[in-house]
């Protein structure tokens, strides 16, 4: 599903300039592979490069060197059009800060990926799938609410439903439970586990919570941009 070889990512100002005061790159020589259906936890302290890795895997960040393949496609060589299609169809994102659009209803937020598909599918069909996705996260009854009226846990579940709309093979979650209390975080984690088990969805979750990493089938530990433990 995922193959990463010698990935190096330096933000502007990193790994450059005066040799004495060089900042380490956000990711240096990262190599890893994730099989279809795996649940990989990426752990590490804040600033260790977890988010950077997930952004690159998801094609949101294109400035790096090395080799990254997702679902057999070499991300460096993909045209923006194809990379966007990959994000639309194959990858689902869940962010720590949810990023639901406040001016849209819950169901509209969940349907959003369908807007950017490359074929004009039936609107009713897209809403049907959105309802299914909401049903999976247990929020079918809140479909017409505005996200601002939901609790943090509910918002993250809506965000998960949005990520699930096009039934992606790969789910990239950046500290999905970071903004949630223990109980709601556990509920969201249960959803992930079930997705992994039932649909064979590949999960890559960045976290620093041991509860999450323990549930994973495998974990890697990042420290200042290097994998120190696999």
């Amino acid at each position, binding site marked *: 599903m995922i193959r990463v070889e010698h990935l190096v990512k330096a933000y502007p100002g990193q790994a450059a300039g005066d040799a004495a005061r060089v900042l380490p790159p956000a990711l240096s020589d990262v190599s890893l592979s994730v099989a279809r259906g795996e649940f990989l936890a990426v752990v590490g302290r804040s600033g260790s490069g977890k*988010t950077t890795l997930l952004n690159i895997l998801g094609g949101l960040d294109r400035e790096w060197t090395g080799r990254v393949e997702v679902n057999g496609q070499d991300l460096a060589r993909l045209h*923006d059009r194809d990379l966007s299609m990959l*994000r639309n169809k194959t990858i689902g994102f869940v*962010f720590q800060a949810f*990023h639901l659009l406040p001016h849209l209803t819950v169901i509209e937020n969940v349907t959003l990926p369908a*807007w*950017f598909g490359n074929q*004009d599918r039936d609107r009713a069909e897209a809403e049907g799938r959105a309802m299914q996705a909401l049903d999976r996260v247990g929020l079918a009854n809140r479909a017409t609410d505005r996200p601002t009226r939901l609790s943090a846990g509910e918002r993250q579940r809506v965000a998960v439903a949005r990520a699930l709309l096009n039934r992606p093979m790969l789910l990239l979650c950046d500290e999905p439970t970071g903004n949630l209390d223990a109980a709601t975080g556990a509920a969201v984690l249960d959803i992930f586990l079930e997705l992994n088990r039932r649909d064979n969805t590949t999960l890559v979750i960045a976290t620093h919570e041991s509860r999450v990493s323990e549930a994973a089938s495998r974990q890697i530990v990042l420290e200042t941009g290097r994998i120190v433990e696999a």
Partner: protein
Amino acid sequence: MTARAQVGLIARFLVRSRGHFAFALVGLVVGSATLAFFLALSLGIRERVLNRLYPVNQAELQIETVRLFGLGIEVPSRLDQASLAALRSLPGVTGVYPKQRSRFQARLWGGREVIGHEARVESFFDGLEPELLGNELRLSEAEVLGPEMGAVICSADADCGIGGRCNEGACHRRVWWDSFRDPGGRLPCRADSGCLPGQACFDGQCMISCAEPCTAGAACIQGACLRTCTGNASCDPGETCVQAAALGVCRRLACRLDDPRDGAGDDPEKIRGRLTSRAGMPTPGGGERCPDGTYCATDNILTASGACEAPIPVLVSPFLLEVYNRVAATALDLRRLSGLEVLLGVSFAMLYGESYFVADAAFDQRTIRRCRIVGFSQKAMDFGVTMPLAAVQRANAMLRGRDAASEFTSVVLTTARNEQLPQVIEDAKILGLVPAPRSEDARKASSMLLVLTLVFALVSLVILGISAINITHTFLMLVTERRIEIAVYRAVGARLLDVRMLVLGEAAVMGAIGGIAGCAGAWVLGRLVNVGASRVLGGVPGMPADLFLFSPVVLLVGFSCAVLFAVIGAWVPSGRAARTDPATVLTQG
């Protein structure tokens, strides 16, 4: 992203940010309104005022008048067939339309049916080639009489009111413009020198001699070229199709008045005289009169014998009506005329050879001809009437002979493109021809109008440019405000192009709204200005009722400029939007 999804998103964007757009939209509306307003005004004035005098690709030239005290070398030149041929060969010239004035004294009387009194005035007239007017008569007629075909459903002519015709179940009003052409007529003569160039005198009547081969559609009968025909319909009014040498040819019907003095009267029956036999023609049945729509035009006022002819169609200048209403009607206590339309179809008689100003011609030189007003044109004489050129040439030949009939007063030149005109005018100077004063004025006015139009168009473009800058600012702000939203779109699969098109599409929709509102506003403003102008300038001759011409092109320009400037304004912000980095926006803060 599909077009439908895009439209949906743009609509949401617009509705959500409408407050931000109000200001930018005002600029677009004002800019496109100004543009459409001035373009329509300029086009209206060009089409309805200037082009009716002289279209931009036309100029009227005349012989340079000799300045008595000037030092210029006198060029003894004539504007005749030879000069016309020379003008035709000038590069860029597409049309050469000579004009000829009457060269003899004449009086006219008539008009009782419209002014309630028989007017008797000195008459001046000129002739021009009907093709010169193009579609103009038809348009000016439609302006005063409305469309040729009305919405009224009918089964018979009687359902359509006076002058209306029922055609295929719908009423058609009486149409006049197509009758402004030479109706033909007999030119009596004593010698060849009293005929037009190329004609000879046969039995007291001018005809084209077959010394040269006849043109197509004519046959040589007894030394004269006669038009061939299949029936009376293919001959001029007053002619009949007769068999000669196994061919049908047009012969003019000969007629006699009961009394020579009947020709000056106004009894319609008496004027039509009685048909008489003539050599080479079948004798008509006893007592038959000239055919419908014709009268018996005698050779001179002393004789009762003549030929059937249709009245000469004439045009009058709108200016004439104005002068009549302003001056004559008040001073002489005559009925004022409401509009040009009441003059259509009015008949009058013209007496060639008599004058209030100068001595009359000999009795046997005086001739009565009938005329009928069939239209108005700014190109018609201001004081007098305008006939088809051939009718004036016949009259000049009849009273002044061939030389007078073959010299023209002026000539209108048309060129394929406006830019060619100055060079053509320059070239024509060699022939001793200079622009007629009115033509010069029209050209100056035309250039002035062009400059003014450009200035106002520029002003509108500046307004639009300012609103484009405004749009740039508004959208830059909005793009920043919406960066999370844009980043989310990118994360769930929006392409760079999708993001860009969303912003540009939004601007285009705004531009379209502004453009439509602007054009509509310009149109409404135009109506108001028309009302105001008719109050202030209503009496100015030749002032059109509608100063504006909101042609599809004008509306399209107004609309598309608004869209274009909105899109240009949103160009930079759309690039900024596309460059929104989802990784940074979505994972920090």
